[in-house]
C-alpha cells in the first residue's frame, strides 16, 4: 500500500507516494534522485547518510520517510548558494583537503554544520568527539577535523544561519 508523503527538501515542497517501510534516505535518493546523500552501512553507524531534519543532524537510513512528513529537510545539495558559491563548511573541506575518496563527505559536511551550530568556535577535541557517529573508511580524519574547526570559526564570525 502506498501512502502520500509531503515535506520540504532544500526549500522546495516535495511529495511522493511511498511504502510505509520506505526510509527517508530511499525517498531522497530513489524517489527524488538527490543522490548526494550516501548509504554507507545502512545500520546507523557510519553517518554517510546524515541530513538535517528541521535543522538537526539525523541519520536518514534510520528514519522512515513517513516519520519526516511535514518536516523541513536539508541535504548536501541544499548547501551551496544559487550562484554556486559554496557553504563555508564545504569551502573549508576544499581548503583543508577534508576528503579522500569522498564517499563519507556528504555526511561529514552535514554533521560538521550541526557541530558548528552547537559548538561555535569548536576546538579539535570537541570536533573529534562529536564526529563519533561518522566514519571515514580512508581514515582521512586529519583534514576533516581541521575543516570543521576552521568552518565553525567562520560560521560563528559570520553568524551563519543555513
Amino acid at each position, binding site marked *: 500500500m502506498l501512502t502520500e508523503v509531503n515535506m520540504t527538501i532544500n526549500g522546495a515542497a516535495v511529495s511522493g507516494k511511498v511504502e510505509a*517501510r520506505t526510509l527517508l534516505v530511499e525517498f531522497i535518493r530513489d524517489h527524488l534522485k538527490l543522490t548526494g546523500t550516501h548509504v554507507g552501512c545502512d545500520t546507523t553507524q557510519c553517518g554517510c547518510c546524515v541530513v538535517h531534519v528541521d535543522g538537526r543532524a*539525523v541519520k536518514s537510513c534510520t*528514519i522512515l520517510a513517513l*516519520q519526516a512528513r511535514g518536516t523541513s529537510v536539508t541535504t548536501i545539495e541544499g548547501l551551496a548558494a544559487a550562484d554556486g558559491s559554496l557553504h563555508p563548511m564545504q569551502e573549508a573541506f576544499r581548503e583543508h583537503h577534508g576528503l579522500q575518496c569522498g564517499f563519507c563527505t556528504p555526511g561529514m559536511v552535514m554533521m560538521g554544520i550541526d557541530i558548528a551550530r552547537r559548538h561555535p568556535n569548536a576546538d579539535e577535541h570537541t570536533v573529534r568527539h562529536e564526529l563519533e557517529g*561518522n566514519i571515514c573508511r580512508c581514515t582521512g580524519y586529519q583534514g576533516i577535523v581541521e575543516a570543521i574547526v576552521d568552518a565553525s570559526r567562520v560560521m560563528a564570525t559570520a553568524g551563519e544561519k543555513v
Partner: protein
Amino acid sequence: MQDFTFHMPAAVADAASLLGSCEDPKLIAGGMTLLPTLKQRLAEPTDLIDLGAIADLKGVKREGDQIVVGAMTCHADVAASELVLSTIPGLAMLAGQIGDPAVRHRGTIGGSSANADPAADYPAGLVGLCATVVTNQREIPADDFFTGLFDTALEPGEIITAMRFPIPKWSHYMKLRHPASGYAVVGVMVVDTGAGVRVAVTGAGPSVFRVAAMEEALSKDFSVKSIEAIKVDADGLNADMHASAAYRAHVITVLAKRAVAARG
C-alpha cells in the same frame, strides 16, 4: 524490512486504542533500535504506531521538587536542558553519552527505557535516581520497572508518557563505553538522594541492578576509601567478546570509585 501499516496518532488515547485494535502492533518512538531490528527482520509487526506527533510527550519541566521528562524527549534535549543541567547534572551527563549526536537527536528516554537493553544507559539513570515511570495507566517505580533482559513491567496496551525524577543532592554517571557501539560495557550511576546513597549498574548484568554493599558504605561514609575494598560477585554477570564477567565485576568498583571521587 517487511512492510507494515503506519499510524501517527495525535494523542496517547488514540495510540492506545490502535494498540488494542491492530493485529500485531508495535510502538515506535525514536526508532534507533526498532528500525535496525525491523531491517534485520527480527521483528515483523503488522502495524507501526509512531508517537512522534504527540506534542504532550515532549519536553522537560519542573513540578515541585521533581523534574518531569516527557517520554518522547530526545537524548540531545535532555543533555542540553538548562533545567536538567541545573538540577540533575548527572542525568544530563548520562543522556549526552548515549550513541552519537545524530542518534541523540532521534532516540528518546521513553523508547530506550521501554526497550530495556541490558547495555543501555537510561536504566541506570532511572533506577539510580529513584525515578517513577508514568504510563497512560499508572505510575511504576523504576526499581520495579526493569524486570529482566529486554523485559519491563509494561503490560500490553500500556504506553510510557513521562519519567519523574526527584531532584537529588548530587548525582554522577560513569561509563566504560564500547568504542564502536557506544553502549555501556559497564555504566554506574551514583546518587546522593539526601536520604541515602544509591548505586545502579547497567551493562554488567542481564538487567540494571543496585549494589547494596556500596550503598550502605557510601551512606555511612561518602568516600572512595569506603568502597574500594568492595568486590562485586561476577556470578551471573554478562560475559561476551567484549568483556568477561570477572572484568565487568572489577570495572563496576572502578567506575563507582571514579564517580564518588568526582564529588568535589
